[in-house]
Every structure is written in C-alpha cells, then in structure tokens.
C-alpha cells in the first residue's frame, strides 16, 4: 500500500469507488456496481448528515490515556457531548467507579484565526494538553476551517515532536473533503500507522533477557490476535467476540476503540489481524500485512448465526485451528437454536427495513432472514465492493429487496416506509426518529449497552425484536399526533427522484 507515504489517506470515492446515492433492488445494485456506474451521482435535495469527523471523535475519544484536540470552530466537536456517554460507560464497565468521560479540547477558531491562521493556537493547545494531562497520545483532528484556510497540522505536529512527551497524531477528517464518512476510518489508521505503529520491538513486550521469557513471549505472540473493533460495538459485543476467540485459545489485542495507544504498538507482533467489518478495517490490516507480514481475515462481520460461524472458520483456517472451531461452532449453534425456538414463531414473516453503516445494515438483514423475518428494504449509508458478499446472501433469498444507498436522508426512508409498511425499522442512532414518526416499531441497530454480535447477539436481537413487537403503541400514537415535514405529494413520488446522474 503506497498510500502511507502520503500525508492524507485517499478518499474512499477514489480508493474504492464508494457511492452514497442509489435506489433500486439488491439484484440491481450488485450488477450495476460491478459495472462501476454508481459514481458521480448526487442529490438535488439533501439533508444534513454525518461527516467523517463524527466517527473520528466517536472512536478516538474512547482511547485510554489520550486527549483529542478538535482543531476547528467550537461546534465541530460538539457531538462528543453525547458520544461521551458511551465513553463514560466504557470506562465504568472497565472498573472506574467515577469515570471522567471523554476528554477533548476545541481550538475554538474565531474570526481572527480564520484571517491569520490557526496553527499557533493549535501548537499552544498541544503543548498545554501535554503538560496538563500527561497523555500517551495527543490526537489532532482537522476540520473544515483549517482545511480551507490551509493550516498545516502535520507541520505543527512535526515541529513539536521533540518538545512534547506524548505521541502526536494529526488526522485529516475535514467534512467537506469526502462524501463518504467511512473515509474517517482510513484517516485514523493512516495517522496511527505513520506515527505510532513502527514495529519497533524495544517496548515492554519484547525486552526480555532470559531465554525462557523470550520463548514464553514467542508462544504468547503465536496466539495473539489483533481484533479490530468498531465504535458501534458495545462492551457486551466486545465481550462476546473475545469469549469466542478465547475459546479458540487466542489472546485478544483489541483496537482501536477503548484501547490504550500501546495496543497499536503491539499490533505488528500479533499472529493474525481479525476484522469485524470489511468497510472499517481493510486499510489497517492490509498495511500490517504488507509491512510486518501479519496475515489477516476481514471479509466477514460476526453478526448473524452463519456469519459468526463463517468468521470463526476463516480465523481458524489461518491458524490451523479448524477442528477446534468446528467443535465450538457445533456446540454454540446447537445451544443457540434451542434458545431461539420459542421466539421464532413470533418473528416469522414479520417485515423489516434496516438503515446504518454498509456492512452493519446488510449483515443484520442477513441475521433477520435467518430468524425467519422478511426484509423489505435495506438502507446502507454507503456502498462499495465490500457490500457484495452480504448482498449476495440477501439476493439469494429475494433479489427484489429494495436498496436505498444514503447516508441517513430520512426523506427517502419515509417515502419507502409509506410504500412498504414494515413491522420494524432497525436503524442508526438519529435516523430512527423519522421511522418512529411513521408509527413503526424501532430497534436501534447498535449501541445502548446491548449485544448484537456473535451467537449471543443473534439471540438477543431476536429477543429484543420480539419485545418491541409486543407493544408498538408508543410510535403508533406518535404517528397519529405529529407531522412529517414533507408535503403530501411526496408520498406519491418516486423515492429516488432527487438522485441525479442516473443513466
């Protein structure tokens, strides 16, 4: 991967041909994406949504022993006021009884900074952050204002390298630079790879002066795996995946979310990197592979029963643990199926629409199919080659499932809901409300300290959908008593009317 020499990771539009504007069926998206004609589209009507800064702050404020500096106007990092709740929960879950929450600073760029540049202010913030909090890492996130006025955040970081004890990680996540918020993942990993992951084995993990200790460490590393978590994964999700990997006899080095920066330093010495979301981790894992020879598996999200088994099989195959994996899969799935039996009759043929990040949406849809539910539509926040695997699975059951590629854009969702009338909408934080106002029951697709991943997640999602369907009156009343902002005529229109550039 030659990108690493660049200051800024490439945009997903270029690197992967990722798109965010499509309406059709899963069969169509599959064929047309292969034809490569989904790029260069746009919407003539659009709604405010998520830029790459938002996932960046969600992931990075969760790091231990680190400070995030949002270099921009005072509002750019404001999302942390709510993201901080999960950070706090994470700290609480790991034993801190009076957790401090997310630690972040804003450089609060003002009118005069826009004129004279914000680099000096940023430098002062870095120096003060180093002194004040003595963190292991100082993460600098660049936003639109410094992106336009041309602040050199890499230069500022370089200049302070000697002066500051913490490792400085400049990260480019200016909102206007890319339509694909998932570019943030690349931007983050790019900076960690350039500034922290050096494969330098002089760390505490490697300095042993007696042979027995060295051998022990070698054995440990032969069973050490990097598990690339995502910010939409909860503590219980991480626990479940760790449980399964421990059953295989593996030790987990979890990163990036909730990790200590040392987890990044350790990463090149693992026996394997394991992704949980192809759209999230490919950049990091392929670099570790290229540079340090760490093999990886990354095609599969462990959400859904078959998907979890497949995930385990792929991991086992890389480490020669196939037999152990089959035994685990058999006993786990038997127990799960027994547990699911009483729930399934209540889920049978219930209809669903899903909306969130690409793989999350598609994999959760596959899980619902396994539970006997019918998928009416999926709304991945973007689409690229990584979506193909899950799309094929959905297509096999029903090629006519509708797909609406959109980063939120609830106006399209609401139109689709009126057409298809799902029993339940399984959506992303903040876009659920628009389905709720249509009177549909909601299961949030991630978060709330619940479990979604692995076998335990499959059961819990089933249990929670059943719970929601038991009493839908809250949203039914809501629909009867509040208005959507769209004119009546909208519901008779093609939901994809405002997508431009369709041949």
């Amino acid at each position, binding site marked *: 991967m030659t990108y690493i020499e660049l200051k800024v990771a490439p945009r997903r539009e270029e690197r992967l041909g990722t798109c965010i504007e499509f309406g059709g069926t899963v069969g169509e998206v599959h064929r047309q994406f292969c034809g490569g004609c989904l790029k260069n589209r746009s919407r003539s009507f659009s709604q405010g949504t998520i830029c790459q800064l938002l996932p960046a702050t969600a992931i990075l404020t969760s790091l231990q022993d680190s400070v995030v500096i949002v270099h921009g106007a005072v*509002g750019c990092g404001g999302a942390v006021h709510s993201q901080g709740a999960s950070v706090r929960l994470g700290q609480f879950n790991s034993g801190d009884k009076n957790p401090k929450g997310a630690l972040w600073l804003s450089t*609060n760029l003002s009118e005069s*900074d826009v004129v004279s540049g914000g680099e000096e202010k940023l430098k002062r913030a870095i120096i003060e952050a180093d002194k004040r909090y003595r963190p292991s890492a100082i993460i600098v996130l660049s936003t639109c204002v410094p992106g336009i006025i041309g602040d050199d955040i890499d230069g500022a970081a370089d200049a302070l390298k000697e002066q500051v004890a913490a490792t400085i990680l400049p990260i480019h996540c200016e909102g*206007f630079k890319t339509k694909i918020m998932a570019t943030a993942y690349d931007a983050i990993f790019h900076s960690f790879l350039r500034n922290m992951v050096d494969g330098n084995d002089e760390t505490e993990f490697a300095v042993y002066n007696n042979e027995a200790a060295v051998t022990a460490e070698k054995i440990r590393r032969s069973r050490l795996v990097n598990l690339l978590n995502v910010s939409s994964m909860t503590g219980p999700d991480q626990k479940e995946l760790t449980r399964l990997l421990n059953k295989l006899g593996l030790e987990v080095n979890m990163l990036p979310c909730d990790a200590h920066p040392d987890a990044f330093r350790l990463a090149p010495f693992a026996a394997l990197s394991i992704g949980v979301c192809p759209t999230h981790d490919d950049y990091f894992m392929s670099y570790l592979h290229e540079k340090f020879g760490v093999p990886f598996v990354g095609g599969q999200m462990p959400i859904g029963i078959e998907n979890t088994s497949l995930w385990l099989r792929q991991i086992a195959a890389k480490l020669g643990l196939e037999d152990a994996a089959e035994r685990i899969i058999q006993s786990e799935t038997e127990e799960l199926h027994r547990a699911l039996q009483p729930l399934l009759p209540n889920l049978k043929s219930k209809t669903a629409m899903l909306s969130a990040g690409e793989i999350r949406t598609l994999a959760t849809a596959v899980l619902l199919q396994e539970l006997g539910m019918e998928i009416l539509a999926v709304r991945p926040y973007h689409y690229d080659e990584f979506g193909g695997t899950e799309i094929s699975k959905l297509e096999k059951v029903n090629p006519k499932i509708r797909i609406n590629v959109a980063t939120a*854009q609830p106006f399209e969702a609401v139109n689709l809901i009126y057409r298809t009338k799902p029993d339940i909408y399984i959506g992303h934080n903040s876009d659920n409300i628009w389905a709720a106002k249509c009177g549909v029951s909601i299961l949030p697709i991630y978060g709330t300290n619940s479990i979604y991943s692995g076998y335990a997640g499959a059961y819990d999602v089933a249990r929670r959908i059943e719970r929601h369907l038991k009493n839908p009156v809250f949203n039914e009343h809501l629909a009867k008593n*509040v208005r959507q902002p769209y004119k009546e005529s909208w519901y008779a229109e093609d939901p994809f009317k405002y997508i431009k550039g369709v041949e």
Partner: protein
Amino acid sequence: MPDNRFIERPRSFCSLGGALLTATALPEVVPILHTAMGCGGSIYWNQYGSTGYLGAGYCGGLAVPSSNIQEKDIIFGGLERLEEQVRTTIELIDGKLFIILTGCTADIIGDDVQSVVRQYRNEGINIFGAETGGFHGSGYKGHDTVLTVLASEFIGQKKTKKKNKINLLGIVPGQDAFWRGNLLKIRTLLEKLGLEVNSFFTQHDTLDSIQNAGDAELTVTVSDFYARKTAEALQDVHHIPYVTNPFPIGPTATEAFLKKVAEALELAPETVNKVIVSEKEQYFHYIERVADAYNDLDWQRYAVVVGDANYAPAITKFLADDFGWLPELMVVTDDIDEEDKTKINAVIESLTSHYPAAVAYESDPTEIKTHFWQVIPRRTDSLYQKTFSPGFVVGSHLEREFAADIGAGHLTVSYPVGNRIVLNRGYAGYDGSLSLIEDLLSVIAAQR
C-alpha cells in the same frame, strides 16, 4: 474563555448550532443549512447530549435540508448548489418560512447568500438568510443573529403600539435545556399582569403572532446578556424600547423582575402587587409542607454554582436569598467582557441575604476545579475542621465527577445537560423555583 486559547469540553454550541436550534424552535419555520455535510449531524448529536436529549422536532435533526457542499463547491463557489437546494426544499418541504443558515465553509468562501434569498423572495417565497458560521462565536450569538434577522426583516412595521403588549427575549433554546418550561413560566406570569406576550418559541406563539409583534409596547429581556442585538433591532427598526433584567428564579428575584416590568409599562401598582401576593401564596402553599423535612433532616447545604450568565447568578441568588443555602462560589462559564462582569457582580453584591459568595469567570473544567479548591478547604486528618460538608454542586454534567470526588450532591442545570431528560420542566419564576427545590432535594433524598 479568551478566544486566543483552546477550550476544554466547550459549554456552548457554535453560532450555527445556536442558530439551528433557534430556527427549529420557531413555529412553522424550516431551516436550510448552507454548510458541509456534517454540520447538521454534529449539531444533532450535540443537542442530544447537551440539551437533555432534545429531539429533532419538525424539520431538524438529520431531516434538516442542507446543501452539503463539497470540495468542488468550496473551490468554485457553492451558490449553484444552494440555489438548487432551496428550490427542491420549497418543492418538497411543508414550511411557511425558510431561513438559510450558513456554516463555516460557506462564510469563509464568501458565498453571496443574499442573492439567492432575493431571487426567491421575488418569487414570493418567505425566505431569509443569516450568516451563522461556527467561527463567528457561540450558540448564544447564533441565536441572536437569527432573531435579529427576523426582527429587522420579517416582523412587520406597525404605526401604533398596542398597550400592554410585549416581546419576551433572553431565553436561548438549546443553550438553556429548560427553555420551553422557562419561557412558558415567564410568559404565564406576565400574562397574569394582564400583558399580551410574544414569546417566539412556546406552543402559544404562531408565525402570525411573531410577524405581528411590531406593535409591542416594550421588549422584556430576561437576561442581561443574551439576545441583545435583537432587542436593539426591535428598538431601531420598530421603535420598541427594551428593559433587561437578570434571569429570575425564586420569589425574591421574581418580585423585583415583576416590579421592573410593571414600572416600565406604567402599570398600576395594585395590579402587580396583587400578582406578587398571590404567587407568593402559591409558593408557600408548597414550601410549608417541605419545611418539615428541610428542618428535621438538616437539608441546608454549602453550594458551588457553575452555569452560564443567566443561570449562575440566578441560582446563586435563589439559593442565598430564598432557600437559605450557602453558595460559597459562583462560576460563570460565558466569555463575557469586563462591563458585563460588573452586572453579574452587582447581582451578587446586592444579595438580600448578603451572603459573601465568591465569583469566578471560567469555562474550563480543569481550571474550575482550581477555583473550587481555592474556596473549598481540603480535608485533613484533624477531628476539628471546617469542611465543605454537607455540600452540593449545581452545574452541568461536567461537574458530576468533581462532585462525586468531594462527596457533594450534584444537579445538572446548565449546558451541557446530558444526564437528564427535559420536557416541560422550567426553573424560572416562583413556580419554577419549586421545581428546582424538588430536584435539589430529590438528589439528597435519593440517598436515604
């Protein structure tokens, strides 16, 4: 918080955030953001965690129309995209008034938004534009900017003024998580004086009533600091004078407030006295039956109050002058100039209880702790020591950890309010102070 320095965990929205929350709080108004794609989402996530889980409302949150300008628009100008977005918004969205709010990106590249506004106004569309890029300042400023645009361009000119009709300003949606309850309480109180009130953001306000607010006799701002430009615009454009008053919480402050309004409107003293007597009666109707526990269980507390320029002095005054608590320190978190500091200091200097509260101006949670430690004696091993116990911290959710560290009670009132749900609760006036008492004492009672 001087602007040459970073801010740790800021205690306000940016100008755009304040503007958007103001626009979505107005009846039948549809905002159109002219920003990069993430501003809408950032503000929505922010309001969730800072404004008591405030939802999107009619056309806010991720439904807000937004031009989502990209790099090419930044290079070549974003007006073409904006023009298209306004056209499709009018086609698709049911709104009576549209207001374009610009973000950092559009303001830096200098898009001439007014040209788009003019174009659609000529077509008969009720549309306005406000320059609200985040780098212009805080959410309080964005709020003032939007209302100033309405005051100068939307509110109709009226030749004659209507006796006893007023405009109410000074409560900032979003920056004040309790804005709905607070506004309604003040409005109801003023109505008891026989006034007709345009309060912009309550369920009793309509776009028509706002447009017709030009015949008000007076603007009453329940803040010495916020919405100042709006009050000035109402004065300059519509010749409506204004009075400002510290945000009133509790009987002592509210009585003074009512008298000030009555005086400015030349109301008969009997009118206002009657209201004061009956409101006080109501207040003590409830107080009488919490007084047992207050006394039996020794519910007097030392206090530290951290809040914006409305809340900090208002709560400090209530605690000191009505509730008999001991506010040792008041920290005002806004970035305000020396002249305004004198106004806040005046509130503290004129406390009727003469309680000697220390005053600090600081937003940074780390620095605020330093201020705490200057007034709160550290615990020692001695049997005989003067401690900050029993103590209470009234502030934002950022003070939670500190309060727990020193074993003090804690209630979140001021931004960010991420550990409470706020619907119709408000702390203003007589009635609101009863809610404040409920909330303060419930924290203590919850430990029983």
